[in-house]
């Protein structure tokens, strides 16, 4: 029953990346065009993933022996949780390539190679059903991003890239140890087998800690988040969109896919700690975002706050909350992606990211104003748009068992509004500040085409999330079975 | 004919005195000559042990070739005795070296009692004459023999290349 679709989705971009890498003579424009075509093709190919619904089970499975003696298999498969994230990745990629027309002018071919390699890595992460395969893709997707930030970034790019790399790798070392321990004990790295593995509470404790460490760095959860603002500020627009849109989701996806089902007792035991960190993340992130001067930093810290919500939803061990969390992962990808694209567009024109330098853009750039307001509304969770549905489900789910945490978190919703509207007022309303404001032309059709799909999805999810939620809920239910039992007993 | 024991004593005395002087003499040429003395002492010891071929080769190669090379280098470089040379880096190192030698002597004896056995029987078991050495050399140790020859070739090429005075068009 091997379905080659997923292999195609991963292999396609990878092969294209290789091809591009091996054609030094290729001029920039055709190279960029090729990248765009490949990413679009991958997106088109990834759509059926959403269509099929196997009641929470694994679809498009592909299984082949890889390292036989350790029982490690090259097995791919996608369920309700992974499918939306894969489609999100394949959706964002073409947009990033389109955006790169504006600001990437030299080394375009290498830019394409890095993007395609990253896309392959990320799809692999979401599609891997084998623990070791997951780890391989987890690391593989890291390198292109490091290079992307390191080569195409801003002033302090090397510092930021290195910091990002070191944080993630340091986090993923305990993960590697834990994986090796698990595979050695279970004799196979397949997820299904590992789920049935009886683990002693003490053992489960440190394994959970190791897994959680790697994923919390990636989320990023509060104490381990300092790499994110630097990485975002220095990353090129494309890099930021991918970093915020997909890379952060790997952390939360990992928590849901591996931590909760594999180590139910430890997860429930550590749930209060993680909930507390999530709430701190939400409030602390929001506060920091409010105190920032740099546009990208504000959005970066808002990501910390939004993903705090997602972690809150996951560790409330409630199907409603967890489904809301998965939905929020997708939403955050859309809204923050749009915001970063918009900031990229402004940066292309003004070459400064300090909020104080801007003012009264609404008059000269109405289209930009409308898009920015829309993206902001989605980000702060105004009902009618996607952000609200996710946050609402997370909070209503969390309230059942942890009313205090949900209460504090909902204050985060308020703080979110404060700094985002501050951003919008600083940029769009009030008197004109920047001398050259008049010279900046409004968004051209390319840029609008870029944002259109994101806004369309925002409204779609905002008004009718049922389609997506029905696809997400069964697998989440399945993931949370074990922790739910532990929760009940407690 | 002199008894072997006395020959052993004479030659070992020569060797040891030579060795002491090699490291104490300040002038390199003197050190070199004393070293020649040590080599001859050791060659004598080889003879007392019946290894005639080895003794000859020792003299021929060590004393004859290697030391001449040393002398050549010393003379060519026209080295004179550095002023305050002597036993520099004094206390620590020599102390350590003394400990080392003691260890080398004491430990094996302490550990291997059979070594302390009385003198072995007088009659020489079998002399290591050139023929026997040749038999062993070309049968049992044929491969090392070839390898050593290769090593010598490489050493020769290396030495020539390194020591060659750079021609005008080359820079060091």
């Amino acid at each position: 029953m091997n379905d080659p679709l997923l292999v195609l989705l991963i292999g396609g971009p990878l092969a294209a990346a290789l091809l591009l890498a091996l054609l030094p003579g290729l001029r920039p424009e055709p190279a960029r065009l090729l990248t765009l075509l490949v990413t679009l093709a991958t997106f088109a190919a990834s759509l059926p993933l959403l269509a099929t619904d196997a009641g929470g089970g694994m679809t498009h499975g592909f299984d082949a022996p890889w390292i036989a003696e350790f029982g490690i298999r090259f097995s791919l498969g996608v369920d309700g949780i992974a499918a939306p994230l894969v489609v999100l990745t394949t959706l964002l990629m073409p947009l990033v390539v389109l955006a790169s027309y504006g600001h990437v002018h030299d080394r375009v071919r290498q830019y394409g190679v890095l993007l395609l390699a990253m896309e392959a890595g990320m799809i692999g992460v979401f599609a891997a059903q084998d623990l070791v395969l997951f780890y391989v893709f987890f690391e593989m997707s890291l390198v292109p991003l490091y290079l992307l930030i390191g080569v195409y970034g801003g002033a302090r790019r090397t510092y930021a890239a290195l910091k990002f790399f070191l944080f993630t790798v340091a986090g993923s070392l305990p993960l590697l140890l834990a994986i090796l321990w698990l595979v050695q004990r279970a004799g196979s790295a397949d997820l299904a087998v590992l789920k049935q593995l009886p683990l002693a509470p003490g053992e489960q404790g440190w394994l959970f800690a190791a897994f959680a460490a790697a994923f919390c760095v990636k989320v990023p959860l509060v104490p381990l988040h300092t790499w994110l603002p630097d990485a975002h500020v220095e990353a090129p627009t494309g890099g930021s969109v991918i970093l915020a849109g997909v890379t952060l989701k790997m952390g939360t996806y990992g928590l849901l896919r591996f931590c909760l089902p594999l180590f139910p007792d430890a997860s429930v035991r550590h749930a209060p700690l993680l909930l507390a960190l999530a709430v701190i993340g939400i409030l602390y992130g929001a506060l920091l975002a409010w105190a920032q001067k740099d546009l990208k930093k504000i959005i970066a810290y808002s990501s910390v706050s939004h993903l705090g919500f997602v972690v809150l939803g996951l560790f409330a061990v409630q199907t409603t909350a967890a489904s809301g969390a998965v939905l929020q992962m997708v939403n955050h990808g859309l809204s923050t992606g749009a915001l970063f694209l918009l900031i990229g567009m402004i940066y292309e024109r003004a070459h400064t990211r300090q909020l104080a330098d801007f003012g009264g853009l609404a008059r000269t750039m109405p289209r930009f104003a409308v898009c920015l307001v829309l993206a902001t509304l989605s980000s702060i969770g105004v009902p009618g748009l996607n952000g609200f549905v996710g946050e609402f489900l997370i909070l209503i789910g969390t309230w059942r068992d942890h009313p205090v945490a949900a209460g504090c978190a909902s204050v985060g919703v308020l703080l979110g509004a404060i700094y985002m509207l501050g951003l919008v007022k600083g940029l769009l309303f009030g008197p004109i500040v920047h001398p050259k404001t008049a010279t900046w032309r409004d968004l051209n059709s390319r840029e609008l085409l870029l944002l259109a799909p994101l806004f369309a999805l925002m409204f779609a999810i905002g008004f009718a999330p049922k389609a997506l939620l029905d696809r997400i809920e069964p697998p989440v239910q399945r993931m949370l079975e074990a922790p739910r039992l532990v929760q009940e007993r407690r | 004919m002199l008894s072997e024991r006395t020959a052993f004593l004479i030659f070992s005395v020569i060797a040891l005195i030579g060795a002491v002087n090699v490291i104490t003499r300040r002038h390199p040429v003197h050190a070199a000559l004393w070293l020649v003395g040590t080599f001859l002492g050791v060659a004598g010891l080889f003879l007392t042990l019946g290894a005639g071929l080895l003794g000859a080769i020792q003299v021929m190669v060590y004393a004859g070739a290697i030391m001449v090379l040393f002398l050549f280098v010393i003379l060519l470089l026209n080295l004179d005795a550095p002023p305050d040379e002597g036993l520099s880096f004094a206390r620590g190192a020599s102390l350590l070296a003394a400990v080392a030698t003691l260890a080398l002597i004491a430990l094996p004896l302490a550990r291997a009692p059979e070594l302390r056995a009385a003198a072995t029987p007088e009659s020489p078991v079998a002399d290591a004459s050139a023929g026997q050495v040749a038999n062993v050399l070309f049968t049992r140790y044929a491969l090392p023999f070839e390898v050593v020859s290769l090593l010598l070739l490489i050493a020769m090429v290396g030495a020539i290349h390194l020591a060659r005075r750079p021609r005008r068009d080359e820079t060091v």
Partner: protein
Amino acid sequence: MTALLAAGIAVTTALAAPPAAAEPAWLMLIKVLVAFGITMTIVPLLVLAERRVSAWMQYRVGPNRVGIGGSLQPMADLVKMLFKEELRPDGVPPFLFGAAPAIAAICSLSMMAVVPFGGTLELDGRSIPLVVADADIGVLAVLALSSIGVYGITLGGWASNSKYSLLGGLRSSAQMISYELSLGIALLGVLVVSGSFESGSFRLSEIIRFQAESGAWNVLRLPLGFALFTIAVFAETNRLPFDLPEAEPELVGGYHTEYSSMRFGLFFLGEYAAMVAGSSVIVCLFLGGWHCPWLATEAVVGPGGALVQVAVFLAKVLAFLFFFIHVRWTLPRLRYDQLMKFGWTWLLPLSLLNLLWAGAHAALGWF
């Protein structure tokens, strides 16, 4: 004074070298004295002969004033050597300055210990091999001592504390080392050919016995070997055409310019002793030593037979010495770089070729 001391040491080393011979001490002493005596007599004769022959070759008379026809000239030289003032330049390491000539002399003299003058002498029931120390490593000892000889010259050059002598010393030792190489390999050729001996030892007497039994001298088997060996010996003893180091105009006498009286005499002695030893080794290896083809020396019973062998051996050696002297006054002197080039690029390959030829000869057993 140091010279005499040096001579004494020479004797003990000769004694100690071949301990394997289990003969009574006094017999060993007599043999040493006999060998030492023969050498010491040949050397002054050689000096005289050299001057007479060179003069004869150049249509001049040569020394004929002292004694009958100049026969006592060597005595005169010796007396001159002994009583001249011993000069020593300042800044010279005293011991080394004196030791250098001694080393040269010792090495040359000790070589004779290994050379068999004759067969075995039956005297009141005891058969005495007519060799000082028929050492198992025989020929190798010759090589070893010749390499030690280099020290004498090098130190001599260095100890006299002057640039010219230093350079002269270095050049001569370099020359000796280079030719020692081809000497060794040529020697190998002989050993390979006469390798039919069983115990694989290097005894000269066995080589001679082999030549005697097989009826043909090695010179017939290895003509190339013979030529190479002689050239190498010429180089070893710094004889013309290779006596460049001391004769070079700019080097003014080479390493023994600073030496005077007896030290110079020792150098002189060393050189001529080396010639004697060299020629005797050549005779043993290539010209059948004390063996004379048509005169069945073994047949002659009693001491007379041994004496005949010694006589035959001495005759050959003297003939060869004559050849030495003859060459000196016929061939021109080689320049230093030609000399080195000849030694490395011609002599060495040829000796390897000779070794090959000897190998083939031994393997195929021609004769």
